[in-house]
């Protein structure tokens, strides 16, 4: 049984339906990417999985339990954490304070939690008393991921981790994601940067106009010319 199972999820904003029934599985040791052209509904899907957007129809199960309409804080407590695409750190808080807020649910998080994150991202330890807003984009992204890791989740949802980063930093971030995955955390991410994401993923889903289009291993999708056509029209 998969760690996360989404079945025929339908959702949207206001009265505009954006996701028209999407199904997705993530196993407990996988990195899974969701790619697709602009406006395909990738970020909306992510938010629906994390209950930030109401799920109109379909079910989401996590570790075998139905979590379709759970509160976000319950999801975090039970092992699913989410990193938004933009504005994902508290800019006027220091790095350490940001991490402390990541572990807010735990009361005051134990030292090991900080250490685990500092092991993944040594730069954060060096700068732990710096204001998050004054760091570079790549460092902020790492801090955002670190914040979500404070709860030691089983599944990490990443919304475009490479957004707005310079090309050489993108590789850094993806390497860190693999490292985190090797530490027993499943990853589900949405990516604009399709080629890179697929290269680092076990499997990928291609979304178009709010529906599943293709699903395969990263490698197969990478070499599929139909995927490219999807982006630029027929």
């Amino acid at each position, binding site marked *: 049984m998969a760690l996360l199972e989404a079945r025929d999820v339908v959702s949207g904003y206001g009265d505009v339906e954006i996701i028209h029934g999407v199904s997705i599985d993530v196993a407990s040791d996988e990195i899974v990417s969701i790619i697709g052209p602009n406006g395909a509904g990738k970020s909306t899907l992510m938010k629906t999985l994390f209950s930030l957007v109401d799920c109109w129809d379909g079910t989401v199960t996590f570790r075998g339990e139905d979590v379709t309409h759970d509160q*976000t*804080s319950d999801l*975090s407590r039970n092992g699913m954490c989410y990193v938004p695409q933009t*504005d*994902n750190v508290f800019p006027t808080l220091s790095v350490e304070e940001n991490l*402390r807020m990541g572990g807010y649910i735990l009361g005051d998080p134990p030292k090991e939690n900080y250490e685990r994150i500092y092991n993944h991202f040594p730069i954060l330890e060096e700068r732990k008393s710096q204001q998050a807003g004054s760091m570079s984009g790549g460092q902020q992204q790492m801090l955002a991921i670190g914040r979500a890791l404070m709860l030691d989740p089983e599944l990490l949802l990443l919304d475009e981790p490479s957004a707005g980063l310079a090309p050489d930093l993108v590789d850094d971030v993806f390497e860190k994601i693999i490292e985190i995955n090797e530490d027993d955390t499943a990853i589900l991410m949405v990516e604009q940067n399709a080629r890179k994401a697929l290269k680092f993923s076990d499997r990928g889903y291609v979304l178009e106009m709010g529906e599943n289009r293709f699903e395969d291993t990263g490698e197969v999708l990478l070499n599929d010319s139909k995927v490219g056509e999807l982006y630029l029209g027929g």
Partner: protein
Amino acid sequence: MALELQLVVNGIVFGSIILLASIGLSLLYGIGDFANFAHGEFLTLGAFITFAGYVTFGLPIYVAGLMAFLFVGALGVLIDRILMTRHRDSTPIILLILTIGLALFLRAVIRLQWGDNQRTLGMPLERGTELLQGSVGWIDYGIRITSTDIAIVFLALVLATGTHLFLTRTRMGIAMRAMSDNKSLAKVAGIDTDTVMTVTWALSGALAGTGGMLLAMQTGVLFPRMGFNIVLVVFAAVILGGIGSPYGAMIGAYIIGIAQEVSVMIPGISAEYRYAFAFLIMIAVLLYKPQGLAGGRW
């Protein structure tokens, strides 16, 4: 020269009084995203509770002040629980009107309880101590400071430091700053934003209550409109410092306090217009530097 220095000292004392009110207002503005027009009434209430403790029950002034701190803080919690929880998603306009209604309501309650007449705190009169007396060439200088003034400045600074430590050391304090930074991310991170809001009301009220006590100590007279009279000055300090930034509010409070006292020196402007002068500074800030001195930073 002596007069100018004296005015600056008076400004620092007045700045200390509005300091606590400004921090409280700024916290609420930054975290809850609305202007609390009832903040002046919090000050008035703090002053009258000090009066009740000191005059009516004959308690020592600092015990009375502690009562004001606790009581107005508790009132903040009550307001949040009864009134504001159902308005978590309301627009700023609704919140604005709500706090205006709350202000009228609270002031009416104060009047019903303590009447419309002026009351005096009746603290022992004291002659100020001359400080720094001397002369340079033909200029004499010298400032008078009473021990009450010193107590006010000291108490305000202690509480401001306490607030600073709370905001930077405790989990709740950091959560308040986090929420002021980014509300939706705070929710995503699992911060219990509802409780944070309640604590903010409590802290804001407690600080304003103590500010009211300081105001009563300094002026010695109490009347139901005393808080409303200076709430605009408090708003001016908050806006000057940058809305939502308690540290900006601290700087703003002293700048406005001093500027307002020194404005008496401007020829042709009578002392009655001191509050209007603070208001003028506020308009100028809103027009030319709406993000305030702190520029949206803490």
